[in-house]
C-alpha cells in the first residue's frame, strides 16, 4: 500500500468534474449519485406499494362497496370500482413484493449501502464503480417488468409474495400465467442486481478503508451494512435458483414443485424460507445500524457497548440461517425438528435484546437532542420491541398453531417492517438528506410528519393483533361473509380509516422531501455536529469525496469527549497531545 500524501490543501487529484450530464446523473459511476437514484426509485415503489395497500384496506373495511375513484380501474380489475377477488389476490401479492423487494430492501441496502459505505470509511468511491452502475441499471428493468405484470392478460401474479407452489407453479390454479412469469423473471434480475451490489459492498469495506479505519472503528451502520451484504450475497442466489425452477415449471413443463410427477411443493417452501429468513435480517440489520448512528448523535454520548453491538449484529446474521423452519410449522414437520427451530428462533431474542438495551443505555443520561432523525430512531426502538416480542410468541409452536395465517402475523410483520425498518429509514433519510442534497429538510414539517405517522401507524397495526387473536384470516377477500368475523367489521373500518390517514400523512413527507430539495436552508458540512467521516466533506460531497484520503484517529461516536471543547470529536481530527486513557483498546 502506497504511503498517503500529507494532508495539504488541494493535494492529490483536484476533483475537477468535467463529466457530461449523462455521465454525471444518469449513467453515473459515482456511488453518491447511484445511491440517490436508488432512493428516488425505491421511494416511488414505496408509494406504489402503499397505494395498493389502500385499495386492499378499502375492500376489507367496506367489502363490495365501490372504491372512491376506483372507476378509473379497468373492468378486469374493478368493474364499477368494486375490487374483484382475483384483483384482490394480485394486490396482496404485489403489495408484499413491491414493499419487500423494491422499496425496503433497496432503501436500506441500495441507497444507504451505496451512499454511506465509501463516505463513512474514507474511500473515494466503491471498489467497482462500473459494477455499481450495472447494479442499478439491472434493478430498473426488474422494476419495469414487475410493473408490466399489471397490464398483461390474466392480470398480475396472485400467489402471494411468497409464491407458494403449486399455486404459483401451475397457471390452472390462479388463472394467471404471464403475470406470474414476469414476477419470477423480474425477481431473478433483481437478485442479480443485489448480488452485484453485495460483491461491491463487501470488497469495498474489506479493501478501501482509509488509513486508521480499523474494523472496530467502523460505525455500526457500516458494520450492519457489511453483514447484510454477506447475507444478500449468500441468500439471493438461493432465491434465484428456486425462482428459475419455478419459472421452468411454468414454462418448460418441469416438475420441481408439482406433485403429480413426484415434485415437492414443500421443497419450494424450504428454498424460499432458506432465503426468506436471512432476508428478514437483510431488512432490519441496516435499520438497526443506522438507528445506532442517529441515537448516538441525538444522545450526545458514545454508543453504549459498541463491541457487544457488533457481535450482536454478527450473531443475528448467523442465527438467521438456522431458523427458516419456523415459517413452516403448519406445513407438516417432525415435532422434534419444530422444537429445534423454535429454540434457535428464540435465541435471536438474545442479541436483539442486547441491542435494545444498548440503545436505551446510550440514551440514558444523554443530553438528548430531539431532532427529527432522533424522533424516528426512538420510535424505531419502541416499535421494534413490540414487533420483536410478538415474534417470540409466534416462534413457540403451540402458539403459532393458533395464530398461524391470521392478522396477528400481519401485525407482527408490519411492526418490524414498518415500525422497525421504515421508521429507521425515515431517520436515515432525514439525517443524511443534508449531505445528499446540500439542504436542510424542514424541521417543523418533519416533526408534524413524524407525530402523525407514529399515531396513525399504531392505529392501523396495533388493532390487527386483536383481529388475529379473534381468528381473522389474512389474505381473505371479504371478511363479511364469515359469521364469526362480523363483530370485527367496526374494527376493520377503523383500521381502514387510519390507514387512509397514514397514507395521506406521507404527503407531508413528499412535500418536505421535494420542497427542501429546492427551497431548503443551505446545509453546512456538519449540520448535526456528528463525528463520522462523511461530515468532514462538503454537502453534497464532490466527485471523489475528499481531495486527499482522510486519516482516522478515533473510534466512532466520540460525543462529549473530554479531550475537545466541542461535544463531538470527529474521527479524523488529530489531537496535538495524545493523552493516555486507560482501558481503551489499541486500535481494534
Amino acid at each position: 500500500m502506497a504511503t498517503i500524501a500529507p494532508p495539504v490543501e488541494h493535494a492529490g487529484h483536484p476533483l475537477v468534474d468535467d463529466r457530461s450530464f449523462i455521465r454525471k446523473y444518469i449513467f453515473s459511476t459515482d456511488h453518491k449519485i447511484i445511491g440517490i437514484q436508488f432512493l428516488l426509485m425505491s421511494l416511488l415503489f414505496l408509494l406504489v406499494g402503499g397505494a395498493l395497500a389502500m385499495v386492499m384496506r378499502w375492500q376489507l373495511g367496506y367489502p363490495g362497496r365501490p372504491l372512491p375513484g376506483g372507476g378509473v380501474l379497468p373492468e378486469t380489475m374493478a368493474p364499477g370500482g368494486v375490487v374483484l377477488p382475483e384483483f384482490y389476490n394480485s394486490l396482496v401479492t404485489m403489495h408484499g413484493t413491491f414493499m419487500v423487494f423494491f422499496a425496503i430492501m433497496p432503501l436500506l441496502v441500495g441507497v444507504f449501502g451505496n451512499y454511506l459505505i465509501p463516505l463513512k470509511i474514507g474511500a473515494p468511491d466503491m471498489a467497482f464503480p462500473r459494477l455499481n452502475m450495472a447494479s442499478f441499471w439491472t434493478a430498473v428493468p426488474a422494476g419495469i417488468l414487475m410493473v408490466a405484470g399489471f397490464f398483461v392478460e390474466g392480470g398480475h401474479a396472485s400467489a402471494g409474495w411468497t409464491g407458494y407452489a403449486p399455486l404459483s407453479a401451475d397457471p390452472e390454479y390462479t388463472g394467471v400465467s404471464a403475470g406470474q412469469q414476469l414476477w419470477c423473471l423480474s425477481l431473478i434480475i433483481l437478485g442479480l442486481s443485489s448480488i452485484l451490489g453485495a460483491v461491491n459492498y463487501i470488497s469495498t469495506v474489506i479493501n478501501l478503508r482509509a488509513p486508521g479505519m480499523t474494523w472496530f472503528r467502523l460505525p455500526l451502520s457500516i458494520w450492519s451494512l457489511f453483514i447484510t451484504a454477506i447475507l444478500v450475497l449468500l441468500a439471493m442466489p438461493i432465491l434465484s435458483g428456486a425462482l428459475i425452477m419455478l419459472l421452468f415449471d411454468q414454462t418448460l413443463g418441469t416438475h420441481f414443485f408439482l406433485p403429480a410427477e413426484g415434485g415437492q411443493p414443500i421443497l419450494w417452501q424450504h428454498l424460499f424460507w432458506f432465503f426468506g429468513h436471512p432476508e428478514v435480517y437483510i431488512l432490519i440489520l441496516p435499520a438497526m445500524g443506522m438507528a445506532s448512528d442517529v441515537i448516538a448523535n441525538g444522545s450526545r454520548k458514545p454508543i453504549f457497548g459498541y463491541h457487544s453491538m457488533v457481535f450482536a449484529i454478527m450473531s443475528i446474521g448467523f442465527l438467521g440461517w438456522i431458523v427458516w423452519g419456523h415459517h413452516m410449522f403448519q406445513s407438516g414437520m417432525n415435532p422434534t425438528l419444530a422444537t429445534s427451530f423454535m429454540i434457535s428462533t428464540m435465541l435471536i431474542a438474545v442479541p436483539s435484546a442486547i441491542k435494545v438495551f444498548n440503545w436505551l443505555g446510550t440514551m440514558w443520561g444523554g443530553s438528548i437532542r430531539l431532532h427529527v432523525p432522533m424522533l424516528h430512531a426512538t420510535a424505531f426502538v419502541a416499535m421494534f420491541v413490540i414487533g420483536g416480542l410478538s415474534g417470540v410468541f409466534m416462534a413457540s409452536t403451540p402458539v403459532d398453531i393458533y395464530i398461524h395465517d391470521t392478522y396477528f402475523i400481519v401485525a407482527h410483520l408490519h411492526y418490524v417492517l414498518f415500525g422497525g425498518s421504515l421508521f429507521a429509514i425515515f431517520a436515515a433519510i432525514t439525517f443524511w438528506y443534508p449531505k445528499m442534497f446540500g439542504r436542510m429538510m424542514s424541521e417543523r414539517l418533519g416533526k408534524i410528519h413524524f407525530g402523525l405517522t407514529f399515531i396513525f401507524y399504531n392505529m392501523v397495526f396495533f388493532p390487527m393483533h386483536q383481529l388475529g387473536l379473534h381468528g381473522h384470516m389474512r389474505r381473505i377477500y371479504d371478511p363479511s361473509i364469515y359469521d364469526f368475523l362480523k363483530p370485527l367489521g367496526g374494527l376493520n373500518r377503523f383500521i381502514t380509516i387510519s390507514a387512509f390517514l397514514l397514507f395521506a400523512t406521507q404527503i407531508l413527507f413528499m412535500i418536505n422531501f421535494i420542497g427542501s430539495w429546492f427551497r431548503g436552508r443551505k446545509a453546512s458540512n456538519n449540520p448535526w455536529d456528528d463525528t463520522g467521516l462523511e461530515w468532514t466533506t462538503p454537502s453534497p460531497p464532490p466527485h471523489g469525496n475528499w481531495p486527499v484520503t482522510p486519516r482516522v484517529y478515533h473510534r466512532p461516536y466520540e460525543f462529549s469527549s473530554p479531550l475537545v471543547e466541542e461535544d463531538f470529536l470527529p474521527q479524523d481530527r488529530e489531537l496535538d497531545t495524545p493523552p493516555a486513557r486507560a482501558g481503551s483498546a489499541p486500535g481494534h
Partner: protein
Amino acid sequence: MTHAVTEGSVMLPAAEAEQGAGVYNEKLGMWIFLLSEVMFFTALIGSYIILRFSNPAAWPAPGAVLNIPVTAVNTFLLICSSVTMVKAFANAQDGDQRMLRIWLVLTVLIGASFVGIQAFEYNQLIGHGFLPSSGLYGSTFYTMTGFHGFHVTMGVLCMIYVTAKAFRGRYTPDDYRGVEVIGLYWHFVDLVWIILFTIVYLI
C-alpha cells in the same frame, strides 16, 4: 511500520497495516462472487438430492438414457482446459506474451467445444424424446447441466475478451489481474462440472 504506536491511547497513528485483505480488488471481488455462485449451485444440487432421495423410482439406471462415454470425453476436455488456463496464468506471470496467447486461445477453444458437445448431446436427447418435461429426471438434468453450460458460455465470452487484451499486450508480469481473475472463475466452473457429472451421470 513507520509510525509509533502509543499503547492504550485514544489517538492512534493511521495504521496502514490494518488496511485491506492484502488482495487486489478484482481478485477479492471474484472470490466473493464465487461464494454467491456456490450458493446458487447449492440450491440446484440440494433440490436434486431432496427430489431424488424422496422419489428414487423416477431415476433410470445410469447410462440408460444419457450417453456417458461422450460426456466423459467432454469432462476430460474441461479438465484439460483448466490445465491450459494454469499454463496461461504461469506465462502471464513470466511475461511470455507468445505462450500466454497460445494457452489462452487453447482454453477458449476447449471451452467452446465443451459447449458445442453439450449442445450436440442435448440435440440427441431431445431427438430421442427426452425433454425437460420428462419427469423429475428430465427436469433436474436439463436445469442443472443447462445452468452449468450457461456458466461455461459466459466464461468463454469473458475469456475471449481477456484473450483479445492479451493480443494487445495488456498483461505484464506486474499486472496480470484479468488472467488471474478469469482463471479463478474457470476453475470454479470446472469444479462444479466434476460434481454434476458425478451425481447426474454416474450415480
